[in-house]
C-alpha cells in the first residue's frame, strides 16, 4: 500500500509500500514455447506443465501437487496427453498419459488436457473413481465439505455414480496427532502433502507414511528413534501403533493444505460450514513478520483463521500461533464500556464503575491535568500497536501532554538500543526484506531464535537452507533444534559475551569466527539482530561495527507486531516520527508544522524503565498505558508499585493487571474490530481491513477524544485523517541520530552455585494473546531448564532431574535438560508455564542466578537409595 495516495508535496511517505516488481521478460534461451490445448505459451525453462496451464487459466485437477512443495506425482490425478518432438524432430505421442505436476515443459511439446483429450479425461475420471472407492461418503458432516478439492473435483472431473459396490477400508476415527491436529485416516487420499510439508518446509518430520497398499496411512514416528526426545508437547495425544505425539509450531498448515477432510483442527472441528463463513483478509498480530491471513467469521464471531497467500512475505504458511490464537480478541474479560474508579472516603481507590465516554474522558483529563501540573505524565503504549495507533500515542504525548516521556518498548531495553534504532532502523523501511534474506548467501542471527521469535522468517530461511542457497549462523548460547533444522553454525556466546563474540568475527581468525567473517563478507550477506540484544551492553555497538567491517546488511527483527511501526511512529523518548531525532531542531520544526503546534518538547524523554521508576517515586504523577503487561517489563514488581502509586489511564482490550490498578479504563478495539496497518520488521506496511462490525474504537480515536478533553486537537479522529497526516509528514532526509558506541561490559562473574541466565520466549507460552486456546496450548513445548553436562555434573544432576534457579526474588524449578552449551549458563523459557522469569526472578538474560538441584529431587534420590 501507500498509506493513502502519495501527496505530491512530500518527498516520501512515512512508511512507503514495497514497489511492485514487474515480472521480468523471459530471456532468450530461458524461455520454453509449447502449447496446451492448442494455446501457445512461453514459460521459463523448468516450468511444470501444471503451472503453465494455471497461467493460461486451464485448471488440471490435482491432489498431491502443491506449488511450494517438491513434485511427488503420487495421486496421478493430473494426467494429460502429451505429444513431444522425438529425436527425428517429428511429434510423437507419449505412450502413457503424463502427470502434469512432474512434467517439465519442453520446446514444441503439445499438451492436451481433459478439455481436448478423451484419453486424459478418461484417465482423470478413472483416478478420481479410484480415490473415492475408499473415501467415506460423509461430506455432510465433514469440515472440508463445501471447500473440498476432492468434492469439487469429483464433481468437475469425476463420474456421476460409482461402480464400487464392495467393502471400503475403514479405520477407527480419529487419531489425535496432537491436542490440536486430528487425523481421520479413512478420509485420507495419501497425497502426502502433510508429510512433505513437515519434511520439506517445517523440518519437523513427526508424521510419515506407514504400512503399504490400501492399508497405507499417515502415522507418527517414535521421536526417540528420530532423536527428538526432549521437546515434547504439553498436551496428551492418542498414540498410533508406534508413535509419539505430533509436535510442531507449523502443524496447522497441514490442515489447510490437506485436500480432503483427513486433517482437522480441534479448534475448528464441527464448528461451522465453510459456506456460512464470511472471509476477510487480515494480518497476523502475533509477530513482526506481518503474515497475511484470512479471517473467517460468522455472525460476528471469528471461527478460524487461515494462512493468506503472499509470496513475498509468508508465502502460504503461518505459525500455529498466527492461525489458532485469536480467541483472546473475544475473551469473556473484554472491556466493553469505559470504566472510572470511585474514590473511597479516605481517598483510597475504590471500584471500577462503568461510565460514559464523556465521564471517562473528563475523569481522565482531570487526573492527567493534575499530574502535568505536578511532575508530568509518562506514556507506555506497548509493542502491539498498529502504525496509526502508535502514531497517535506519540502525538498525544507530545501535543496533549507536552512530553517526550513515551516509550513503546514493554520489554528489556537500553539507551544503546534506542540509539541503534534511531541511527540504523527508523526511517529506513524496506532496507532489508524477506527477499534479501532469502537471496543472502549467509545470514547471521544475533540474539534471535528464529523459530521461537519469528516463525515465518524461520520457514523462509529454511527454504533457502534446504535448497543449499543460504547458510545460517547464530550467535547464541546454545544450538536449539530450530537452529539444527536450519543446518546452522553456532557461534557460542554465553549471555553477556555476545559483544565480545561479535567483535571476534574478523577475517583471518582461524576458528569458526574467521569462517563466519568470510561468510558475511560475501555479497548480499545479512545480519538479523533480535530485540534481546538490548540486554547486552555494547551488543548493538558491536553489531554495527560488524556490519561496517564485513559489508553485511543489517536488520532488526523484534518479536512483537507493533515494534517496528512504533519506531517509525516515534514511540521512543528520543525519536520523532520518521526517524527524526528529538534533539534536532529542524526535525522538531518539521513535526511542529505538520502538527500545527508552536513547538514540540526539545528534551529527550524517559525510557520505559525510567518512566516506571519516576512514577514509582512520584516524579511522574500519571501514566497513560496501552497494551502492556507488567510481567513483561524488566522489573514487574516495580511496575506494579508504579501503577499503584500513579494516576493511571489504561487503554485496553481486556481486563488486565493494568486495569486492576487503573483509575480510568478506556476500552479499545482488537485488530479484528478495526482497520489498521502493521509494519513488519522489514518496514513493510501491512494494511488490513476491519473484519467484524464493532462499536469498539481504535486507540487513535480514543486518544483523539482524550486529547480533546485535555483541550488539544489531535486531528486523528478517523483513519483517513491519520493517513493524511502520515503522508503529509513523509520521511526525513535530515541527519540521523549518531551510532551508539558503548563499550562491551565485562562478562558476569559467576561464583560457586551460580550461573548466568539465558532466556527467550517460546513461540507458544503463557502470553495473554494465546488465552482461550487449550488445544493450541497443548502443543506448546514443555518448559525445561537447559544446562550443560558440566554444569549438571557440578550440581549432581542428571538429565530430567529437577533444577532450582533462584534469585532473591524467587525460585523457578524445572526439569533439567542437558544439552551442548557453555558451562555455568542456564537457559529458561521467559514466560512459559512454570517459568515466568521476569516475574519470578526479576532477572533477565545476562543476570547471575543461583542454581541447585531441587530439594524434592534430592529426597527422592535418597528414598530410592534406601529402597
Amino acid at each position, binding site marked *: 500500500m501507500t498509506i493513502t495516495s502519495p501527496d505530491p508535496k512530500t518527498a516520501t511517505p512515512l512508511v512507503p509500500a514495497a514497489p511492485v516488481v514487474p515480472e521480468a521478460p523471459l530471456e532468450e534461451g530461458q524461455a520454453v514455447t509449447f502449447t496446451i490445448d492448442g494455446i501457445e505459451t512461453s514459460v521459463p525453462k523448468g516450468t511444470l506443465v501444471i503451472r503453465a496451464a494455471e497461467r493460461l487459466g486451464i485448471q488440471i485437477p490435482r491432489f498431491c501437487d502443491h506449488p511450494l512443495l517438491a*513434485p*511427488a*506425482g*503420487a*495421486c*496421478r*490425478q493430473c*494426467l494429460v496427453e502429451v505429444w513431444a518432438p522425438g529425436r527425428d524432430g517429428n511429434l510423437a505421442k507419449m*505412450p*502413457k*498419459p503424463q502427470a502434469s505436476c*512432474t512434467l517439465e515443459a519442453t520446446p514444441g511439446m503439445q499438451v492436451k488436457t481433459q478439455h481436448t483429450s478423451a484419453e486424459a479425461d*478418461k*484417465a482423470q475420471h*478413472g*483416478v478420481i*473413481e*479410484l*480415490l473415492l*472407492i*475408499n473415501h467415506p461418503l460423509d461430506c455432510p458432516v465433514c469440515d472440508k465439505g463445501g471447500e473440498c478439492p476432492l468434492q469439487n473435483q469429483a464433481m468437475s472431473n469425476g463420474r456421476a455414480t460409482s*461402480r*464400487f459396490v*464392495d*467393502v471400503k*477400508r475403514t479405520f477407527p476415527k480419529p487419531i489425535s496427532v496432537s491436542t490440536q491436529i486430528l487425523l481421520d485416516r479413512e478420509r485420507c*487420499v*495419501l497425497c502426502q502433502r502433510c508429510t512433505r510439508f513437515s519434511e520439506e518446509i517445517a523440518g519437523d518430520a513427526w508424521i*510419515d*507414511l506407514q*504400512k*503399504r*497398499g*490400501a*492399508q*497405507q496411512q499417515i502415522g507418527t514416528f517414535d521421536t526417540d528413534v528420530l532423536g527428538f526426545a526432549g521437546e515434547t508437547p504439553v498436551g496428551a495425544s492418542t498414540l498410533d501403533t508406534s508413535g509419539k505425539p505430533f509436535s510442531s509450531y507449523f502443524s496447522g498448515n497441514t490442515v489447510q493444505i490437506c485436500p480432503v477432510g483427513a486433517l482437522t483442527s480441534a479448534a475448528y472441528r464441527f464448528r461451522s460450514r465453510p459456506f456460512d463463513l464470511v472471509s476477510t483478509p487480515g494480518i497476523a498480530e502475533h509477530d513482526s513478520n506481518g503474515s497475511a491471513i484470512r479471517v473467517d467469521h460468522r455472525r460476528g464471531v471469528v471461527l478460524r483463521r487461515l494462512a493468506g497467500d503472499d509470496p513475498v512475505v509468508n508465502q502460504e504458511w503461518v505459525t500455529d500461533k498466527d492461525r489458532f490464537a485469536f480467541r483472546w480478541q473475544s475473551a469473556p474479560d473484554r472491556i466493553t464500556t469505559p470504566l472510572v474508579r470511585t474514590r473511597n472516603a479516605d481517598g483510597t481507590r475504590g471500584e471500577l464503575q462503568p461510565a460514559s465516554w464523556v465521564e471517562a474522558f473528563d475523569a481522565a483529563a482531570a487526573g492527567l491535568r493534575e499530574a502535568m501540573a505536578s511532575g508530568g505524565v509518562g506514556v507506555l503504549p506497548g509493542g502491539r500497536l498498529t502504525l496509526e495507533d502508535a502514531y497517535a500515542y506519540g502525538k498525544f504525548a507530545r501535543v496533549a501532554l507536552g512530553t517526550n516521556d513515551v516509550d513503546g518498548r514493554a520489554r528489556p531495553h537500553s539507551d544503546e538500543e534506542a540509539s541503534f534504532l534511531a541511527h540504523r532502523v527508523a526511517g529506513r523501511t524496506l532496507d532489508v526484506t524477506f527477499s534479501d534474506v532469502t537471496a543472502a548467501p549467509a545470514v547471521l542471527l544475533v540474539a534471535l531464535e528464529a523459530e521461537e521469535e519469528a516463525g515465518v522468517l524461520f520457514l523462509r530461511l529454511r527454504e533457502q537452507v534446504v535448497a543449499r542457497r543460504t547458510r545460517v549462523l547464530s550467535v547464541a548460547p546454545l544450538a536449539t533444534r530450530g537452529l539444527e533444522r536450519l543446518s546452522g553454525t553456532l557461534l557460542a556466546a554465553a549471555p553477556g559475551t555476545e559483544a565480545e563474540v561479535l567483535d571476534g568475527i574478523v577475517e583471518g581468525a582461524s576458528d569458526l569466527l574467521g569462517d563466519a567473517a568470510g561468510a558475511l563478507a560475501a555479497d548480499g550477506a545479512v545480519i538479523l539482530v533480535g530485540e534481546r540484544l538490548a540486554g547486552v551492553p555494547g551488543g548493538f555497538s558491536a553489531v554495527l561495527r560488524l556490519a561496517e567491517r564485513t559489508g553485511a546488511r543489517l536488520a532488526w527483527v523484534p518479536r512483537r507486531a507493533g515494534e517496528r511501526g512504533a519506531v517509525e511512529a516515534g514511540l521512543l523518548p528520543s525519536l520523532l516520527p520518521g526517524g527524526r531525532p528529538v534533539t534536532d531542531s529542524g526535525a522538531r520544526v518539521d513535526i511542529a508544522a505538520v502538527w500545527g503546534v508552536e513547538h514540540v518538547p526539545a528534551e529527550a524523554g524517559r525510557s520505559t524503565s525510567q518512566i516506571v521508576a519516576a512514577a514509582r517515586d512520584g516524579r511522574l504523577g500519571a501514566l497513560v498505558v496501552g497494551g502492556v503487561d507488567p510481567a513483561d517489563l524488566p522489573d514487574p514488581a516495580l511496575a506494579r508499585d508504579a501503577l499503584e502509586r500513579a494516576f493511571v489511564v489504561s487503554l485496553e482490550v481486556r481486563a488486565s493487571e493494568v486495569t486492576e490498578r487503573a483509575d480510568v479504563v478506556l476500552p479499545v478495539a482488537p485488530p479484528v474490530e478495526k482497520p489498521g496497518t502493521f509494519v513488519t520488521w522489514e518496514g513493510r506496511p501491512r494494511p488490513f481491513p476491519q473484519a467484524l462490525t464493532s462499536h469498539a474504537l481504535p486507540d487513535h480515536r480514543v486518544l483523539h477524544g482524550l486529547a480533546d478533553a485535555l483541550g488539544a486537537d489531535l486531528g486523528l479522529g478517523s483513519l483517513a485523517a491519520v493517513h493524511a497526516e502520515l503522508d503529509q509528514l513523509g520521511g526525513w532526509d535530515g541527519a540521523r541520530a549518531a551510532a551508539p558506541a558503548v563499550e562491551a561490559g565485562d562478562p558476569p562473574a559467576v561464583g560457586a552455585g551460580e550461573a548466568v541466565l539465558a532466556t527467550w520466549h517460546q513461540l507458544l507460552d503463557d502470553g495473554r494473546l494465546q488465552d482461550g486456546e487449550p488445544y493450541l496450548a497443548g502443543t506448546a513445548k514443555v518448559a525445561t531448564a537447559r544446562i550443560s553436562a558440566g554444569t549438571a555434573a557440578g550440581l549432581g544432576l542428571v538429565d530430567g532431574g529437577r533444577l532450582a534457579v533462584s534469585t532473591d526474588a524467587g525460585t523457578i524449578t524445572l526439569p533439567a535438560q542437558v544439552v551442548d552449551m557453555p558451562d555455568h549458563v542456564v537457559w529458561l523459557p521467559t514466560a512459559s508455564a512454570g517459568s515466568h522469569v521476569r516475574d519470578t526472578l526479576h532477572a533477565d538474560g545476562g543476570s547471575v542466578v543461583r542454581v541447585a538441584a531441587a530439594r524434592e529431587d534430592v529426597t527422592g534420590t535418597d528414598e530410592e537409595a534406601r529402597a
Partner: protein
Amino acid sequence: MATTLTPVLSAGWDAPRAWTLQAYEAAGGYRGLRRALGMQQADVVTMVKDSGLRGRGGAGFPTGMKWGFLPPDDGKPRYLVVNADESEPGTCKDIPLMMASPQHLIEGVAITSYAINCHHAFIYVRGEVVHVYRRLLKAVEEAYAKGYLGTNILGSGYDLEVTVHAGAGAYICGEETALLDSLEGLRGQPRLKPPFPAVAGLYARPTVVNNVESVASVPGIVVGGADWFKQMGTERSAGHGLFSLSGHVTRPGQYEAPLGITLRELLEMAGGVREGHQLKFWTPGGSSTPIFTAEHLDVPLDYESVGAAGSMLGTRALQIFDETVSVVRAVTRWIEFYKHESCGKCTPCREGTYWLAQVLRRLERGQGTSEDIDLLLDLCDNILGRAFCALGDGATSPVTSAIQYFRDEFEAGTHTPADVLFPPERSSLFSYTPRHGAALAGAH
C-alpha cells in the same frame, strides 16, 4: 536344429559344495576378473556393449549401454547396486544362482565395478531368503580373504568394498529406485524420474543398478569374448539365460539355454506337462507378463518375439498350468499378491488392486455380476499406464490377458464357483484338503 542347453552360470551347480570359492576356482572362476583388471576400464564396457547382453531382470535394457550412461567420473563416489530382490511370483532364477554359485555374482560385481570405476558395490538381497543371504555373506568373506575384493585387488591397485544388504520383504523394493531408497534406510517407494539412477542414484550419486543374472553373466563375456556370447541366442537377444520351469511340468527346474528357445523345446527337456494332462496356459516371464496358451508353444523366447506375440520375456519364469486349473482362481491369487505388495504411493495401483481383488474374489465365488468383466477391463485400463511405476502396469497383465483367452471362465464366475468348475484338488501334485468358500474369501 534343436536348441540345446548352454549351461554357463549353472555349469558347476552339480559340483560338490559348488557354492565355495574353492569349487568356483577349480571350475575356472576369477579368470574373468584377472583378465578385466589387465584391460582398460572403457574396454570392458565396450566388450559388454558388443556382447549384446541385455538386462536379465525383465526389462531387457542393454547392460553395457546402461553403464555408458554414467556421467564422466568426477572423482567422487559412484556405486554399483545389484538388484537381488527377486520377488515376482514364479520368478526363481537369481536365488538358485546365488545359492549354488554366489562367486559367479561376486566376480561379476568386481568386474562391473572395475568397469564403471566404482569402489563400493552393494548387493540388495531379498530378506526372506536367509540362507541365500548367509551364502552371499560367506562368499564375500571368502573373496575378501583371497584378495578378489578389498584393497589392491590382485595387485592391480584397484580397490572395491562390497556390502550385502538384506531387504525387509517388499516386492516394491525390486523396483530400482525404491530399492535405492530402501538401501538408504528410507521407506521403499519409487522415486520420481528424472533424475535417473545413472545421474543421481544411491546417496544422489551416479549409480548402476543391475540384476543378479546380468552381473553374473559378465565374467563369462570377459573370458569368452563378446563373439562367444553372441553365438548364443538371437541377433538382438544374445546370450544364455536361465529359464525357470515350474508348475505342472514333469521335471521343474532351471534350464539355462540360449534366448530364443521355445517352450515346446523346453518342455521336451523337462519331460512335458505332467502325465495325463495338457498345457492350458503359462506365463513367459512371471506373473506380471500377460499369459500365453498352448498356441504360443513355438514363440521363440527372446525379447522381440515374445513382445510381438503380446507378452514380455520378463524374467523367463515359465509357470505351467494344465487344464485342471481355474484361470479365475489363478489370476485372483496373483492380484491378491499385487494388492498386498502395492507400495501405496500412487492411487491407481493402491486403490485399483484393492478393487480388482474384490471383484475377482466375487467372480471366483461364482457371485459375479454381468458387468464385472467389463468392470475388470475398464479398471485395468484405468491402472495401466497411469501408475507411478511399472508395478501397477504389471498387475493388470494377468487380468486382461486371462480375459482375452478365457473369457468364458470369467463369465462362468457369474453363476458357478471356480472350485466347482475346477476342483483344486485335481490341480494338486499331492493330495490335500482344499479350503472352500468363505474361508478363502476372507483371506487378505
